[in-house]
């Protein structure tokens, strides 16, 4: 298996940056998800690792070997495409055997290898069929089998579940994860679906506008987003981000509520001298509805999600968005068994462990200083 290293890798199409210079090391056996909205450069990054796209700048190493200018066929990688790219004129068996034939492997060994992956993916009954006759899930199984059969140094997957129906997606997600754990193969997985990235990735690389926004474990990008983009992009809904002014040890939130900052944050926030504007960020589950809560607002909408109720709360007490960008609607999780009437007043506190602060100008998270 393999370690992949990108050093200042960048791609420009004409004058347009598709990927700005980025550093990334993917360790042996790691499952890294490249996550971002469409057009953020995640697929281009993957294609540069595969060798299907040449880099504009930087170097790529696989297992310490510089592969920057090697062709895709020389890099010993497997690529799983979103639309499977199964050769339509060949049967499933021929498709799976195809990568082995390029190496001039003996027929008996090819048969044995094919039998192995076929067993692993449980697709024995499909071998004589042709790809157009398969369901989406089966197509992706065959595509995975074709990538697995060669025992490559690493797997590169470009939205492999994107073309599947929702029900297959769940199944195949589990299957890819199972295969990864069984093979312990280095995998780079491109997706725009943050649920997929969170569920599957050992680490997530969040990208936006051709730039890496954050690299971290799913827990890190979820709980400690590096900037406003990540905070908003991860989670559904994303993190609540409320602008306010820092006065004394309190934040005067837009909409009028006054939020006393957690004591652990006070030295950090006080140290930002000359700056009093701040953005308070918290996840819906950080809110605790209580009679005496410091933050108040009006119930704007309430969605029952089964195990909990998602409340949309308007902090400036208006039921109508006022259209001047001053609306402050936050999402908070509330108990499922309490009925909240739209328009009623609600108060809540924030779990001090789960509150984050952001600098509105740089849009970066403010790091909490730990003083000994």
């Amino acid at each position, binding site marked *: 298996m393999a370690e992949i290293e990108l050093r200042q890798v960048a791609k420009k199409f004409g004058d347009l940056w598709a990927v700005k210079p980025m550093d990334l090391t993917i360790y042996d056996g790691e499952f890294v998800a490249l996550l971002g909205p469409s057009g953020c450069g995640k697929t281009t990054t993957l294609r540069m690792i595969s060798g299907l796209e040449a880099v504009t700048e930087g170097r790529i190493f696989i297992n310490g070997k510089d592969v920057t200018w090697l*062709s895709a066929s020389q890099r010993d990688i*497997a690529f799983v495409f979103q639309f499977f790219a199964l050769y339509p004129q060949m049967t499933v068996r021929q498709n799976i055997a195809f990568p082995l034939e390029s190496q001039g492997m003996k027929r008996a060994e090819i048969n044995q290898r094919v039998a192995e992956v076929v067993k692993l993916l449980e697709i024995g009954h499909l071998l004589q069929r042709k790809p157009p006759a398969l369901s989406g899930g089966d197509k992706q199984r065959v595509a995975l089998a074709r990538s697995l059969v060669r025992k490559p140094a690493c797997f590169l997957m470009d939205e492999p579940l994107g073309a599947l129906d929702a029900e297959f997606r769940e199944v195949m997600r589990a299957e890819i994860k199972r295969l990864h754990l069984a093979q312990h193969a280095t995998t780079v997985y491109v997706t725009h679906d943050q649920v997929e990235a969170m569920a599957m990735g050992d680490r997530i690389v969040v990208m936006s506008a051709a730039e890496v926004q954050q690299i971290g474990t799913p827990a890190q990008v979820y709980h400690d987003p590096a900037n406003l983009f990540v905070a908003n992009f991860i989670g559904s809904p994303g993190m609540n981000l409320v602008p306010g002014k820092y006065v004394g040890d309190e934040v005067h939130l837009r909409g009028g509520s006054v939020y006393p900052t957690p004591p652990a944050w006070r030295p950090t926030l006080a140290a930002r001298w000359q700056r009093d504007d701040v953005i308070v960020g918290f996840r819906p589950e950080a809110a605790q509805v209580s009679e005496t809560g410091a933050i108040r607002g009006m119930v704007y909408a309430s969605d029952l999600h089964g195990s909990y109720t998602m409340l949309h709360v308007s902090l400036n007490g208006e039921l109508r968005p006022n259209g001047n960008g001053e609306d402050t609607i936050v999402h908070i999780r509330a108990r499922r068994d309490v009925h909240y009437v739209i328009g009623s007043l609600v108060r809540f506190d924030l779990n001090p462990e789960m509150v984050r602060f952001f600098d509105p100008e740089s849009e970066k998270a403010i790091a909490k200083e730990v003083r000994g």
Partner: protein
Amino acid sequence: MASTRVEHAFSRVGPGFAVVESVRVDQITPRARLGITARLILSIIIAFVMLIPVLWMAMTAFKARPDATASPPKVIFVPSLDGFIGLFTNRTQLSAAALAEQQQRTDLNFWERQTLARGMRILGPSKFVSQLSNSLIIAISSTILAVTLGLLSAYAFSRYDIPGKRDWLFFILSTRMLPAVVVTIPIFLMYRAVGLYDTHVGMILLYTVFNLSFSVWLLKGFIDEIPIEYEEAALVDGYSRLQAFRKIVLPQCVTGIAATAVFCLIFAWNEYAFALMLTSEKARTAPPAIPANLGIGGIEWHVIAAGSMLFLIPVVIVTFALRQYLLRGVTFGAIRQ
């Protein structure tokens, strides 16, 4: 597809019948059935009208000379091979004495006796066979060349960022914009200067160039439709670009290649103007040769018809053999698969 629809209209469908295949109600109402029947009859009539010249040619080919020129034209006649004998042989009209002498002979074969019945003697084979084989050599070679070169350049245009790609494509297309007649004289002069006049190579070259623009454009359309992921998958699977092209792209554009080949073949086979100007003896093809029969002792319509019919047969065979690709070829790009 259309045929199954028509079958629906005439099969027993409607209330009270078991459903074999689902059918839209408006396709089985009496009015719709009447409409479908009317359209069917109309198509048959149109097809028949279209085929009359071909039918007439085939009939004339098997007529004797007096029948072929009879007025009013004869629809019912005694079949004769006169036309074909005229096509494949050179003959001479015999004097009365020579005729009588010939009639005494007993060693004449079937063809010679047929000719003698018209008062003529076969002198030797005509050039038609060699002209037909010239046509075959030139048309097939130029088609193979045009499709091969066209396929390679279409692939390059489809897959690579070639500087000035659109201009090049337009330039290639523009080579077909001048009518052949406009360029024949300059090409005639050039060919005479370089010694390509009346040679097979010269004609093959010319038809290849003429078909190339068509072949590049048509094949580019087909290759564009093949998702690039297939080749990328092959590249990742350890194949070179050329291997990927051969193993993945080629099998998938067989349809396009077949369609392009038929169109190129038909053009090269039927071409008249260049062949008339640029060939005389050695490389003369059939199209300018067939009407040349007009000159020999009056209009020999039955000979011309026989020549035209033989000339038609190879194209008909090829087109028939590749008909499934042709339909796809002429509608390519209209529907995404």
